[in-house]
C-alpha cells in the first residue's frame, strides 16, 4: 500500500498556486499571535530589500494555534507597510500556512523541507517566532551565502548573555566540535538557512518517525556529507525564560538527537581529530555581561537530590569511578561545590555510550542527565560569576579542549 502523504490536499493546492520559488522562509508557530505580525512584516521587508527580484514564499507551519496565528501570517501584506517603509515589492510575495502535529518541533521542519523540494526553492531559511528582535537584515545575512556564494548551510552566531544557552556552551558546542571537528557555535539553532539540495537530500535520506531534534540532525548530516557550511552573526539573542520542567524536553531534542546520531556517524567522527574553524560572516560570537538572576543554590540542590535519588539508574549508565566522584561532590557544602570540567566531559561521554547500548530505556537516560546538567550549570555560573567576556569565552574554550582531549575515552567506551 502506498504511503499516505503527510501533506494535505489543501496545502498542496496552496503550493501549486505559489509555484516555483527561489527562496522559502519557514516559520513554525504555536499561539504566537502577539508577535507574529511584526515578525512577518520584518521578513517581508528583508525579502523585498535584499531579494527584490526573487520569487519568495513565507511558509507558516502552525501547531494548532487557538489565537489566529495562521490567519495573521497570511493576511499581512508588504503593500500595507508601503507608506511607512517606502518598500515596493516587484512581484507577488506569498504567505501561506498549513498545520502540523501539536508540537511545532515535530513535523514543522519536515513540512518546510517538503515544500522547499516541491517548490524547487534554491535557498531556505527557518526562523523562530520567539525571535521578536528579528531584523530585516537577518534575511540577507542568512540567505546571501546560500543564494549567491554556493554555501549549503548557514548557522547563526549571536550576542548572548554569558549565562544564556548553558546547554549549548557546556555540552552541545563542545561535544559537536570535538566529535565532528567543526567549531559550529550553534549546532542546535532556531534560525538557520540551507540550500535546496541539502534540504532535498536530508528529506529523502532520513526516517521521520520522530521529528523531534530534526534540526540538529540536519546540521550534523550537513557536516558528515561535507556540505559547505558557514556561520552568520545575527546580533543579540533574545533570552527566553524557561521553567525547570523545560529542561528534559530540551535535552531530548538536543542531547538525545546528538546521541542518536553518533552511532550512524561513527565512521565520520571516529576519523576526526581536533577541530577546524568555520567561516563566519560578522562577529564570531559575542558575550554580554548584564545582570541575569539564576538561582544557583536551587540548581545545586537539584543536582544533589538527583544524584542521591537516581543512584540505581546511574549505576547502569556511569562507570563506578565517575559515579563515586559525582556522589562525592554532591555531598559538598554549597560554597565548596564544583563540578569539574573533566568529570563533566567523562559524564557526558559515558551517557552517550550508555545511550548507544540502551542500557536502560533511552528516554530515562536522557531524563537522568537533567540533574547532572544542573550541577554543571551551577559550577559554570559560579566560576564565571565575576568573569569578563573574554574570561567566559576562555573558559568555554577550555571546556571544548577537554572534550577534544578526552575524545579517545569516548571511542574506548564505544568499542567496549
Amino acid at each position: 500500500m502506498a504511503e499516505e502523504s503527510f501533506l494535505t490536499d489543501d496545502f498542496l493546492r496552496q503550493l501549486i498556486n505559489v509555484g516555483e520559488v527561489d527562496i522559502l522562509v519557514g516559520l513554525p508557530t504555536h499561539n504566537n499571535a502577539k508577535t507574529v505580525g511584526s515578525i512577518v512584516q520584518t521578513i517581508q521587508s528583508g525579502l523585498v530589500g535584499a531579494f527584490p527580484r526573487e520569487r519568495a514564499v513565507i511558509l507558516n507551519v502552525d501547531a494548532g494555534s487557538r489565537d489566529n496565528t495562521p490567519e495573521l501570517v497570511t493576511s499581512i501584506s508588504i503593500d500595507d507597510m508601503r507608506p511607512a517603509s517606502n518598500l515596493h515589492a516587484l512581484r507577488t510575495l506569498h504567505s501561506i500556512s498549513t498545520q502540523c502535529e501539536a508540537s511545532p518541533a515535530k513535523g514543522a521542519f519536515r513540512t518546510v523541507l517538503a515544500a522547499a523540494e516541491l517548490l524547487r526553492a534554491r535557498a531556505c531559511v527557518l526562523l523562530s517566532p520567539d525571535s521578536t528582535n528579528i531584523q530585516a537584515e537577518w534575511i540577507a545575512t542568512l540567505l546571501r551565502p546560500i543564494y549567491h556564494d554556493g554555501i549549503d548551510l548557514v548557522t547563526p552566531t549571536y550576542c548572548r548573555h554569558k549565562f544564556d544557552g548553558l546547554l549549548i556552551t557546556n555540552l552541545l558546542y563542545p561535544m559537536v566540535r570535538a566529535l565532528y571537528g567543526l567549531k559550529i557555535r550553534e549546532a542546535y539553532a532556531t534560525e538557520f538557512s540551507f540550500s535546496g539540495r541539502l534540504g532535498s537530500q536530508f528529506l529523502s535520506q532520513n526516517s521521520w518517525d520522530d521529528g523531534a531534534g530534526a534540526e540538529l540532525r540536519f546540521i550534523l548530516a550537513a557536516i558528515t556529507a561535507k556540505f559547505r557550511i558557514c556561520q552568520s552573526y545575527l546580533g543579540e539573542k533574545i533570552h527566553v525564560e524557561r521553567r525547570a520542567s523545560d529542561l528534559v524536553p530540551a535535552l531530548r531534542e538536543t542531547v538525545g538527537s546528538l546521541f542518536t546520531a553518533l552511532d550512524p556517524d561513527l565512521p565520520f567522527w571516529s576519523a576526526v581529530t581536533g577541530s577546524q574553524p568555520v567561516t563566519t560572516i560578522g562577529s564570531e560570537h559575542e558575550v554580554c555581561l548584564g545582570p541575569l538572576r539564576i538561582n544557583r543554590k536551587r540548581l545545586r540542590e537539584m543536582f544533589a537530590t538527583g544524584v542521591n535519588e537516581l543512584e540505581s539508574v546511574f549505576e547502569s549508565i556511569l562507570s563506578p569511578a565517575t559515579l563515586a566522584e559525582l556522589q562525592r561532590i554532591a555531598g559538598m557544602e554549597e560554597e565548596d561545590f564544583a563540578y569539574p570540567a573533566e568529570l563533566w566531559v567523562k559524564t557526558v561521554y559515558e551517557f552517550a555510550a550508555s545511550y548507544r547500548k540502551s542500557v536502560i530505556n533511552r528516554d530515562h537516560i536522557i531524563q537522568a542527565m537533567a540533574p547532572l546538567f544542573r550541577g554543571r550549570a551551577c559550577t559554570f555560573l559560579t566560576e564565571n560569576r565575576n568573569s569578563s567576556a573574554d574570561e567566559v569565552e576562555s573558559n568555554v574554550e577550555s571546556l571544548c579542549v577537554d572534550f577534544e582531549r578526552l575524545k579517545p575515552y569516548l571511542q574506548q567506551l564505544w568499542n567496549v
Partner: protein
Amino acid sequence: MLRETVLPLNVSSLNNDPLWYKDAVIYQVHVRTFQDSNGDGIGDFQGLEQKLDYIQELGVNAIWLMPFFPSPLRDDGYDISDYHSVHPSYGTLDDFRKLLSSAHDRGIRIIIELVSNHTSDQHPWFQESRSSRDNPRRNWYVWSDTDTPYKGARIIFLDTETSNWAWDPVSKAFYWHRFFSHQPDLNYDNPAVREEMWNVMKFWLEMGVDAFRLDAIPYLVEREGTNCENLPETHVVLKELRRKMDENFPGRMLLAEANQWPADLRPYFGDGDEFHMAFHFPLMPRMFMALKLEDRKPITEILQQTPVIPPSCQWSLFLRNHDELTLEMVTDLERDYMYDTYAESKMMRLNLGIRRRLAPLLANDRRRIELMNGMLMSLPGTPIIYYGDEIGMGDNINLGDRNGVRTPMQWDGGANAGFSTAPQERLYAPLIQDPVYGYPAVNVLAQEASEHSLLNWMKRIIAVRGSTAVFGRGSIEFLRPVNHRILAYVRRLGNEAVLVVNNLSSSAQAVELDLRAHKGTIPIEMFGKNMFPRVGDLPYLLTLGAYQFYWFRLRRI
C-alpha cells in the same frame, strides 16, 4: 467658415459614430519607412497609398502617421520647420490628400502628428524670433538672459542635453527647450502662438484628417517654482483647442502624448472636454515586466492606480512604438530589472529606455509575442500596432538614436525587401539583414503565404477583437486567483461578458477562477468557438500551457 465646406470630400466609408476611436485598432507608421514609390530610397505618400490594401486586410481602422512636415530631420521629423506643408521627400500636399481619400474609402481614418510644444530652430518663426529682441515674433519662444529660470524642470534627453536652456549667439540670450537644443519651445503664454496653432489644426482638419496626436503636451507652459509639467495653464490652452475643434469639426479626435503617471494624466481628459484619448505609458513597461517576472502584480498594480476617466474618453495602449521602450514611469528598482532582463547590452539602452522592437525584446518567442498582443487587444483601451511588429520585424542597435527601430518595412525577400527600387546604398536606412530577423526570413509576402504565420495570426486576433464592442468599450473586473502567474479579468458591456485568462508563465499552469458571479454561463472560446463546461458554484478549473491565453465569451443560454 461653413461646416459643409470644411468636411472632407469622401467620408462615405467611415462610420459616423463620434466614439469611433474606442473601437479602433491603430496602425502606427512613418511615411518614410513604409513604401518608396519613386525609387529615391525614401518612403512616400504614394507608396503608402499603394499599401493601404495591406493595412486594410490587417484589420486596422486607423493609421497614425508620424511627422511628415518639412523639417531638417534632426529628430526624425519632430523638428518641424513648416506646419502647413509636407516634406518634399514624401511627396506633395496633393499626394497626402489622395492618401487621405483612399484611406477613407477603405474605412480607415488618418491620425497625424501635431508637434505643438516646439519647432525646429530652422522654422521661420524661430529665425525671426532670434533675429532681434524687438522682433514681433520674439515672444513666440521662451527667452532669458540667464540659464537660471525653471530649475525645477528635469532634463528629458539625459544622454545628449545638459540643460533645458541653450545659448543663442545671434540674439545673445538663452532659449528654453525641453527636448533637443535644436527644438526651441513655443511660448504658449502668447495668445498669438495659441491662435497660430489653432490655424495649423484647422488647415489639416479642413483637409480631412481625423485626429491629431499631440506631442509632448505636458510641457507647453512654464512656471517658476514648478517642474514645468502638467501645469493648469497648459490645460487652459488644450481645452481651448478642443473647444474650437468640436465646434468646427465634430467627430474628430485628440490623442495626448504625455509620459506621466496615470493620476497626472487624468486631468488631460478634463470633463471629457480636453483629450479624447491618452497613451497609458506606465502600463507598457509593466506588461514586459510582468512577463519576465511571471507575475501579474505589475499590471494589476498600475491598473489599480489608473483613475476612472470620462465615458467619452479612452486609454491608448501599445507594446512598442517609434521611441525607446520608455522607463521613466517606473521605479529605480523596476528600471534596473528591465535593463538587466531586456537590455543586457548597453547599446540597447537610450535615455531612460530600451531601443528595441517587440520581437527581439521577446527573444522572437512566438508564444510570448502572441500573449503580449493578446493582452494589448483585451485590456481596456485602444491598441496601437507599430508597423512591422505584425510580422515580427527585428531592429538594428548599431544605428544611432532610435533609428534602429525605424528601418524599412520588409515586404518580400527580394531586392531591398520590396521597399524600394533604389540602389541599396541610397535607402534612407539600411535594411535588417541578420539571419533571424532579416528580410529574407521575415517579410510580408512569405507570411501571407503561410496560414500559421504571425501576420495571419495578427489578422485573426484583430478580427476577433472587432467581433465585439466589449474590448473597446467595456468595463474590466480583475479576478484574483491565488496563482499569481495568471492574469484574469472579465470585460463587460451591457449583457455581454468576456473572460480573459492569460498565463504569464513559461510553464503550464493550473488555475481556479471564482466565476460565481457568472454562474450558469457557458464559456465559448472566441478563436475556435468551442464550448467549455458550464460555470457553476465551484471554482472554475482551467489549465493553460506556457504563455497561453484564452478569451471566452460568457454566454447565458
